[in-house]
């Protein structure tokens, strides 16, 4: 399995409102609301933590799910988020990945 690294897009705005992560794309002004799992992945998308580690530490530790199933679902999710321009996926760590802050107000 080749490792995947995900980073938050620099062209989106993000804010947590009442525990729900809202994302708006600057490219087409589309507003998204992320699920709890998608939010955990989004928050951890720092460009240098492998997706497998994110799944293990953030998803499997939080939810009662087998790691292979969680990883498969996470892969599908990040592909979808990447298609919408919210995340980018790389096969190598992205050193200058920043994206918007994710601290919840």
């Amino acid at each position, binding site marked *: 399995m080749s490792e995947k690294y995900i980073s938050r897009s620099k062209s989106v705005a993000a804010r947590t*409102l009442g525990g729900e992560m809202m994302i708006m794309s600057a490219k087409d002004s589309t507003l998204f609301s992320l699920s709890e799992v998608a939010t955990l992945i989004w928050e951890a998308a720092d460009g240098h933590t492998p997706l497998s580690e994110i799944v293990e530490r953030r998803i499997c530790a939080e939810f009662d799910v087998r790691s292979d199933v969680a990883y498969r679902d996470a892969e599908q999710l990040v592909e979808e988020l990447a298609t919408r321009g919210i995340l980018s996926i790389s096969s190598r760590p992205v050193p200058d990945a920043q994206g918007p802050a994710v601290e919840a107000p």
Partner: protein
Amino acid sequence: MSLMQELNDKALRLGVPLSAHLDLTYRCNERCEHCYLDHDDHGEMTTAEIKDLLRQFADAGVFFLTLSGGEPLIRRDCFEIIEDARSLGFNVKLKTNAMLIREKEALRLRALGVEQVQISVYSDRPEVHDAITKVPGSLERTVKAIRFLRSQGLRVTMANVLMRSNRGDTEGVHDLAGKLGAHYTLDPTITPMMDGNTSVLRLRVDASEISSYFHNPSLVGDVESFCAPPAAVDAQVLEGLPCSAGHTSCYVSPYGDVYPCVQFPLTCGNVRQQKFLEIWRDSPQLAEVRSIRLKDLTTCSSCTHAGSCTRCPGLAYMEGNMRGPSTADCEKSFVRTGITTAGMLARKGSPTLMPGLVQINPTPPLTV
């Protein structure tokens, strides 16, 4: 219900200021004839103060941030402020005349992920636009800037303020926007000056003229729907809020004064003297604004337009009563539908249209 409506409803339930409008300066490199601002610097917030305010906004839950002025790009730290805002996750909209935007600035705005740039364009004819801005060559520079911004894929809205001097040019600006790939908005609202001077109101086009714009499908879309008679007003409508100002949105001036909206000069506090969230949560002025429902409006609650009028509580406040009607919006409702408003009937026999305008005055600095 759209996700945006859900977001607004949630912010309202939670008491979160979802949108904030921050004017970075009132200084400007144009001198537009209708402008309501005093262009002198009376002690603008410093870069550090603005960055601190942005953190307070983020902590309070502000998501949509409009940066404007004056001309915001006249501040040397404007890009530093935008960069800081973007790093804090705000959706940033910039309102500018674009005179200071060249290719390099357009590239930077794109790289920073600014969601939208709104630019004032008064005419497609230089002799008209430049006469309004009082800056020769300003239309040419602004249009060049729009091309730079569009070439970077930035979303641009051309805001066309309607006045007597440019009333024949709306189609031209609309067509220009189409050619440049920009959105187009038309706004017939002229606001009294900050010091209460109403002389700029002479620039307003007559209500009868606005009618032709409201019945132009290229400007309003479906005319039949836009100009339809108002729907019946029921108890649910009367329990509604007059506007989002002070409920989910607010305005902060370059001097740190907090208002419900840029068009609602009711001072609610100053971020140099209090934390933003304290003002947002505890200001008696905001509490009063939030307590008002449509049923509480002295004249408008009995108006057939109550459920569909674009009544601006700030303009009503400037006329002397935040619970009263706004003359400009009464006129708009009337010319849109041909049906007289309760405000118009109440004003019959009144010697002046806009008596006792309230003034915006910066809060004096604290003396230690």
